[in-house]
């Protein structure tokens, strides 16, 4: 027994080390879980992207399942995920709102004219203050919010068709039932 332990113990320690490294090294350090998931969405009131005279606030997102997508024209991956947002809009399953983060109003308006507009409305967060309240650290980010205004999910990075099919749409369907 003692003789076997002598060989098995280092092997056991090695196995534990491999298990930890295997898990640790396969995690993406860029994905930081948001403490806001499960909490009411942070309040905000901002001007609308298409109309500086009108405002949009967090209460506009309540009453049904909605998605808040943080984007900007300077964000390369936002362009990559734009088609996916259009695809999500076409399903008609959810109300998509946008937070135009630290952007230029004219540029953002042109972007939507050229690439298509999946959003019901966009809030214009010029100085990024609302972005800080929402814990935004890199566009694009996408929040799923239930009818009571509770944040149910945060997706960091560009949306893909796969993320849409396997994560967002099932969650939206679940929140609606």
């Amino acid at each position: 027994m003692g003789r076997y332990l002598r060989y098995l113990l280092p092997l056991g320690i090695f196995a534990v080390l491999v298990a930890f490294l295997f898990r640790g090294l396969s995690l993406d350090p860029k994905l930081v879980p948001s403490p806001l998931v499960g909490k009411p969405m942070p309040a905000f009131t901002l001007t609308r992207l298409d109309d500086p005279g009108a405002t949009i606030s967090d209460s506009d997102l309540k009453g049904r399942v909605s998605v808040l997508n943080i984007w900007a024209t300077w964000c390369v991956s936002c362009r990559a995920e734009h088609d996916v947002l259009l695809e999500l809009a076409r399903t008609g399953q959810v109300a998509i709102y946008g937070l135009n983060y630290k952007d230029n109003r004219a540029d953002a308006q042109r972007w939507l004219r050229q690439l298509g507009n999946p959003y019901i409305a966009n809030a214009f967060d010029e100085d990024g203050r609302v972005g800080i309240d929402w814990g935004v650290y890199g566009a694009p980010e996408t929040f799923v919010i239930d009818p009571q205004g509770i944040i149910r999910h945060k997706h960091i990075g560009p949306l893909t068709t796969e993320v849409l099919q396997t994560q967002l749409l099932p969650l939206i369907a679940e929140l609606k039932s």
Partner: protein
Amino acid sequence: MKRLLPALLFVWLLLGAMPASATATLEAFKFATEAEALHFKDLIAEIRCLVCQNQSLADSDAELAHDLRTEVYEMVQEGRSDAEIIDFLVKRYGDFVLYKPPLKPETWFIWFGPFVLLAIAGFLLVRALRRQRQVTTAEISAEERRRLDALLGKTDEERDT
């Protein structure tokens, strides 16, 4: 000396460059006293920039780091406590913004893990040393001692010393 000169120059350049990178991000802020400036500097050095994760808020040039420095600066000027400011950031970005993780059940492993390992290593060391001592104190007979001395080449005079 000629050889030493480039090396000294290099060290001097390094020393010169280090504080410059840390203070460059602070130039935009005005403080009434030197103590306030130091306090602000210490506070933002404790906070991680989420964009470039191996840099603190004080060192990072990222846009978000710049915005958060302004946010922290304003809170300091309003007279808010460090705890309030840390809480503000943790509520939005999570514990990950802190270089020093808070003590709670999820972090017990990282706080106490090294001490547990140290205790295990200490226990094994003490056990190994005890075993070794038991071996060295084994009694040998007079006949065995004579043979041992002969093998070691000791003379009669050296014996028993």
